[in-house]
């Protein structure tokens, strides 16, 4: 009997999903997903900065797990560069006094130019090394690699307005389908046409949004690979200063998967918000406006938000903040709390249908 009910529930869920998989919905979804990489490419064009080549050289020289020897290398390099630069006046005087040949002076000048050019990049590497040293107490093991493009990409990796538009449009269409097709009464008069179907409807939309999240994240990762290469997915996230406050000792790929989890949880929260809005505001355009306001206000007012809210919402796509600022566990808890609050509102304002 129980198995029969489970089978019926699964079949009903299948029909709720079928309601979502209309030709129009699929076409709109594909268009949004095709537009996204173009926007990503425009927003994050592949960058070639020759001034950073020296820094890249240092990171490639030191590539791998950070060790005390690498800290020592930085100290030695600083001493070497400082030594060259500090001898500029002294060497010029020695050449003037005839203590150095023109050939020796030329060789020194070449070294001086190299050292001067290299110094800003070295300073950056030294600061990076200092950051790595500071992590030693936390037990994290950062890696040396050319992290700047990846770091820059993740710093700007925040809201995904296309995905939010996608959820609003599909969610409202889905929850408004009964009224649109005049099925509210006939469905509401059935024993399972109310709470159970509402719950399965949310489940179907969450499944749909989860697939959307995965595809959307897939495009983000593709952009990341195009920009930075795919070999850095296994690097510890703590290797980048933007993750200095990150409490998780995970790799880049694992972090992105955790962000995906946060986004999926928030997608579920958005679905419940949409269901609530649709129950409170019957008119399609009014519900669209209210939903857009509820979902986009945090994005518009992002900078005015307190820090705790920024870290909570950063991974949710509801703000433009970098995922690096996300407090993943708090964000998931906030999403679950949002679901509970909007469920309660939805239940207290629930119309008969």
């Amino acid at each position, binding site marked *: 009997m129980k198995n029969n009910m489970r*089978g019926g529930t699964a*079949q009903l869920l299948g029909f709720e999903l079928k309601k979502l998989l*209309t030709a129009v919905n699929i076409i709109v979804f594909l268009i949004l997903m095709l537009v996204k990489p173009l926007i990503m490419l425009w927003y994050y064009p592949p960058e070639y900065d020759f001034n950073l080549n020296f820094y890249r050289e240092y990171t490639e020289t030191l590539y791998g797990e950070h060790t005390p020897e690498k800290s020592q290398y930085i100290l030695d390099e600083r001493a070497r560069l400082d030594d060259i630069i500090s001898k500029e006046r002294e060497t010029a005087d020695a050449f003037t006094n005839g203590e150095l040949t023109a050939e020796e002076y030329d060789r020194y000048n070449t070294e001086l130019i190299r050292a001067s050019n290299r110094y800003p990049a070295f300073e950056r590497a030294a600061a990076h090394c200092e950051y790595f040293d500071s992590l030693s107490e936390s037990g994290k093991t950062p890696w040396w690699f050319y992290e700047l493009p990846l770091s820059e990409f993740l710093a700007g990796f925040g809201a995904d307005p296309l995905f939010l538009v996608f959820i609003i449009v599909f969610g409202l269409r889905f929850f408004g389908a009964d009224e649109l097709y*005049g099925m509210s009464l*006939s469905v*509401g*008069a059935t024993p*399972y046409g109310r709470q159970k179907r509402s719950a399965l409807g949310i489940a179907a939309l969450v499944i749909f949004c989860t697939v959307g999240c995965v595809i959307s994240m897939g495009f983000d990762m593709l952009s990341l690979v195009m920009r930075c290469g795919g070999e850095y997915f296994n690097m510890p996230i703590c290797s980048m200063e933007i993750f200095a406050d990150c409490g998780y000792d995970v790799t880049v790929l694992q972090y992105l998967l955790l962000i995906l989890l946060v986004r999926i949880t928030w997608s579920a929260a958005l679905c419940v918000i949409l269901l609530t809005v649709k129950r409170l505001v019957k008119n399609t355009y009014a519900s669209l406006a209210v939903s857009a306001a509820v979902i986009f206000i945090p994005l518009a007012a992002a900078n005015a938000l307190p820090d705790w809210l920024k870290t909570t919402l950063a991974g949710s796509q509801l703000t433009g903040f970098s995922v690096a600022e996300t407090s993943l566990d708090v964000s998931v808890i906030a999403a679950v709390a949002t679901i509970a609050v909007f469920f309660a509102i939805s239940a207290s304002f629930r119309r008969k*249908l």
Partner: protein
Amino acid sequence: MESKTLIFDKVTKSYGGLNALDGFSAELTCGIYGLLGPNGSGKSTLMKCIADIIRPTSGRITYGGEDIYSLGADFRKVLGFMPQDIDFYHSFTAADVIKYFTLLKGGKYNAETVEQALDGVNLLSSAKKRVGGFSGGMKRRLGIAVTLIGTPEVVIFDEPTAGLDPEERVRFKNLIREMGKTRTVILATQIISDIEAVADHTLFIKNGQLIKTVKNDKNIQSHTDVLEEMYMDSFGQKADSHEE
């Protein structure tokens, strides 16, 4: 099938200061009940109350002695309701609709039950066609099939024959006659000939009140004329006495 009594006890439904139903009382047992009344008389409100779409402001509706709102989903399991304006998700096929509503009614389906349901309303050949391409009449026929899923004990039809062609009306009336032998069927319409053809009783409703109950005598040749006369007396306007 054991027949239970559906009792309306002074059912009132108010919207603001206006009473759509005003102390409606009736007892319905096994048989076909034609609900006759002009627009705004409270027919649809009464049917929505039975279907638990809306709830009365006061009064009780009981089925088998139990309050239908306390029964909740248990009552809806034995209920078939076809509203006046019916449509279905356009991306669904006719077979999908039957399967979907079978599940919503807590039942199970297989190819045979789906075929039977669609064959009963002459839609078997359109089983795999999307509802979006259906005519109004086809949608109503599908609505009738949906209403009858799970062999409900109480069946409510709101203007079921609007948009049906003559042949389908005959088929529908035969179907209703058969159903009325074992269950309670409520048929709300403004077409007197529909009620005359099938109903055992006619309930005249005006301003939300039951003003007259007539046991239909199908032996009278021109029963339609009798009902029409009563309609005129009761409501002071002409009813739709013939099929469109």
